[in-house]
């Protein structure tokens, strides 16, 4: 049994003959085809992030030139997806501006127009539905949020004996959501807005667990926005379309307010219950409201989150 003398290749490698070669190449071909076919679902990942996005820097480390590139990428992506060329900007906080929101509980009639104006302005997913504002209905004389109802749908609002309390992101001065984010994808800006970098978010949803107001929402699927409802005026930290697997929330309409305009929910409120402005300006509506009205709560004040969102009463 000396391997050198006994012509071992023929006996040890039967595949060398014609039949063996054909058989194994056929098997290999079928195997390769099957492998390719089994990887087919990967082809359906249409929105697979681009290499550019993957290598993108952290928002707060980007130079203006970097940001320019990113904005061009986002513009092109949105145009490819929605067939509409958006105007994507990166608006920075203004000097000497600190935003505050005030909501008059005496005036709110619970019509939910703010909810839908917000969805329309901020390009939220329509199906599954994501809404930043939740309007709670509570009986007069109580403030038990646990027993509140946000599914009310009577013929007419306001209903006798009830008041309505819209809740959205409170833009806390001590935001618990920022504290828990493991990748610093969310932080507080100089004007008080708690911003999210959707390209930096890893989708762990710790912030959703930390938020006592239920203000943060998660994109469990690819958000569905009809093309004709897309708002083309976008901001990087604001209403540019999100991808699957990131959290989002109210950002005081960053794309409007940092350009000087009122938020969308305020403009649509038919009762004038919503007030917004710069608390550092003593002549602004919010400064006067906080100085003269019965500002009754910051929601869940006892948690020490110190919201920028105030609820007040007339008289």
């Amino acid at each position, binding site marked *: 049994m000396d391997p050198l003398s006994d012509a071992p290749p023929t006996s040890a490698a039967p595949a060398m003959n014609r039949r063996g070669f054909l058989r194994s190449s056929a*098997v290999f071909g*079928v*195997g390769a*085809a*099957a*492998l*390719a*076919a*089994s990887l087919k679902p990967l082809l359906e990942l249409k929105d697979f992030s681009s290499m550019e996005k993957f290598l993108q820097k952290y928002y707060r480390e980007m130079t203006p030139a970097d940001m320019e590139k990113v904005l061009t990428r986002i513009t092109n992506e949105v145009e490819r997806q929605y067939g509409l060329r958006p105007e994507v900007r990166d608006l920075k906080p*203004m000097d*000497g501006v600190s935003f505050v929101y005030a909501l008059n509980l005496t005036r709110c*009639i*619970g*019509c*939910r*127009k703010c*909810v*839908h*104006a917000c969805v329309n302005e901020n390009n939220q997913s*329509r*199906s*599954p*539905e*994501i*809404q930043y504002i939740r309007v709670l209905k509570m009986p007069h004389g109580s403030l038990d949020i646990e027993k509140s109802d*946000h*599914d009310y*749908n*009577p*013929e*007419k*609002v*306001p209903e006798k004996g009830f008041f309505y309390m819209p809740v959205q992101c409170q833009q806390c001065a001590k935001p618990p959501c920022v504290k828990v984010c493991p990748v610093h994808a969310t932080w507080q800006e100089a004007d008080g807005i708690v911003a999210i970098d959707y390209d930096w978010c890893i989708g762990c949803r710790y912030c959703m667990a930390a938020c006592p107001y239920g203000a943060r929402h998660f994109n469990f*699927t690819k958000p569905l926005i*009809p093309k004709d*409802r897309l708002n083309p005026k976008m901001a990087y930290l604001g209403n540019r379309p999100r991808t699957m697997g990131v959290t989002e929330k109210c950002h005081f309409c960053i794309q409007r*307010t940092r*350009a*000087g*305009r*009122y938020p969308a929910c*305020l*403009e*649509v*409120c*038919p*009762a*004038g219950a919503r*007030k*917004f*402005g710069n608390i550092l*300006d003593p*002549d*602004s*509506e919010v400064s*006067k*409201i906080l100085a*003269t*009205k019965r500002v009754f709560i910051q929601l869940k004040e006892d948690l020490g989150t110190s919201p920028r969102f105030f609820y007040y009463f*007339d008289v």
Partner: protein
Amino acid sequence: MNDNKQTRLVLVVLTATFAMLAVAFSLDLFGKFHPVREIPLVDRELLKTETWRRSYANLVSAKAELDDFDCYTCHEKGKKPVLKYDAKQQLIIPDEHSDIVMGHGTHGRNNNCFNCHDDENLEQLQPRDGRALKFEQSTMLCGSCHGPTYRDWEAGMHGRTSGYWNRTKEGMEQGKFDGPFKKQDCVNCHNPHSPKFPGRQPAPPPNYLREKHPDTDSSHTSH
């Protein structure tokens, strides 16, 4: 020899598995993706920022019909209209004015037309201090009784605002962050004859909690 057989067996099994997977994938045998039930889009009417009512000034600028404000097509000039009251001291509204529902003041106690209208000249308004105001100036008439509300309105604290929030001098100088700021008149939201807001249909409630799989829609009641 034994090793070779085993290798071949593994290869055959693998190939068969892949082939079966290929068939399964191409026929979509695994849990077909059910698209979520389409949630109807909200009516665009709800997204409009227009006020509920239009003031006289709005009607003039929109060149709308102003017949309603042309009192002397029916009334006689120089003749004061006579108000009639029922036994409970409630104003009897004549048929010609049947579109007016009186509900101003608690228990309808503001029930004299000439508390606000000028009985000498019906195309004018007249607050209790005797000034003559045009229909465009109705907000000042409201303010003559509702002082605190008027004060709040002037500061932008009462009523609807729109446009730009920055009205400081620095904001003006910066220019790019400043723009028109608009306040609405009282009558843009309130009906002066019955100022309390009537009830209105609310926009649809949130859908996401009731999102159900199309197949399990009926079985939901059993649990």
